[in-house]
């Protein structure tokens, strides 16, 4: 992400806050089992996992937020199918951190409810680092609650 697109003085993410990870991929969850798959929380190659701060929002409002600020802003807009929620603490306990107010999809303008989750083991660490990222993503997926649109 280019410098300068974060919202200045964005409010830090509170550990008790609920954050949501949206997906347009029906392979990211097992509907029949009500399970979030590990891939849903596996970070992309740039190691910034996109989440939205949805504390206090209803499911309907959360779905609208996800569609407007995530699904519609992909390079090819797609329908948001589901989201998974966890408390921020579940992420920070594994050494992850938040960059609040960052852009969901550069160069789309930053959004106050968006945050990137950073602090993942580096790509340069090879397959062993990948396995650690799988472990962290798996723990998040285990703790997450699945919401279908």
């Amino acid at each position, binding site marked *: 992400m280019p410098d300068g697109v974060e919202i200045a003085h964005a409010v830090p993410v509170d550990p008790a806050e609920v954050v949501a990870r949206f997906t347009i991929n029906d392979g990211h969850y097992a509907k029949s089992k009500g399970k979030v798959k590990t891939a849903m929380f596996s970070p992309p190659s740039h190691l910034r996992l996109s989440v939205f701060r949805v504390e206090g929002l209803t499911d309907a409002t959360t779905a609208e937020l996800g569609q407007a600020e995530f699904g519609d802003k992909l390079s090819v807009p797609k329908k948001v199918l589901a989201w998974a929620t966890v408390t921020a603490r579940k992420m920070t306990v594994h050494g992850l951190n938040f960059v609040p107010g960052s852009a969901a999809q550069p160069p789309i303008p930053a959004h106050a409810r968006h945050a990137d989750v950073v602090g993942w083991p580096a790509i340069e660490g090879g397959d062993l680092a990948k396995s650690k990222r799988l472990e962290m993503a798996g723990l998040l997926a*285990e703790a997450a609650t699945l919401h279908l649109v």
Partner: protein
Amino acid sequence: MTSAATEYFPPFADYSSSSRSAGDVGRLVHGEFFIAFREMRTSTALWGEIHSAESELQAIFAKCSNPDWDGDGAAPITDMTFQQASRFLLSHPAGLPAPSLSAEHDGRISFDWFGRVGGRVTASVGESSSIPYAAILGPGRVKHGVEQFMGDRIPDDIRDSIRKLA
């Protein structure tokens, strides 16, 4: 046997090559064996679940074989990754729960095995024989590592972790 089926079941591809040199009879026997094997597999509950995972794999390959399939810069699932994932799935031993598959942003395919009351094992299959994996078996029972898959047997550490899922 069609070429697509040969590609999808790599262990048979080798056999097919050798049987071609044996002539038409060999090809016929091979084809009938292949059909019978598939029928046997789909006739039981276990293989039914594996067949479902095969379908999942084919769907992933169909949807995710182009760059940026997720609109967020994802790497494509390549033919080689698809074939490696097919071999991994075919190596799935009886008695273990069937995996659930996902495409990953980096072009790999992850296999998730879920415990009945929680916990999971996730293995990530790409083009190479290296398989990064993680096992979450309960509180304080978490591990990760890298195993080698040689094409015919799910690595022991991964297999043992799946067996430990409640």
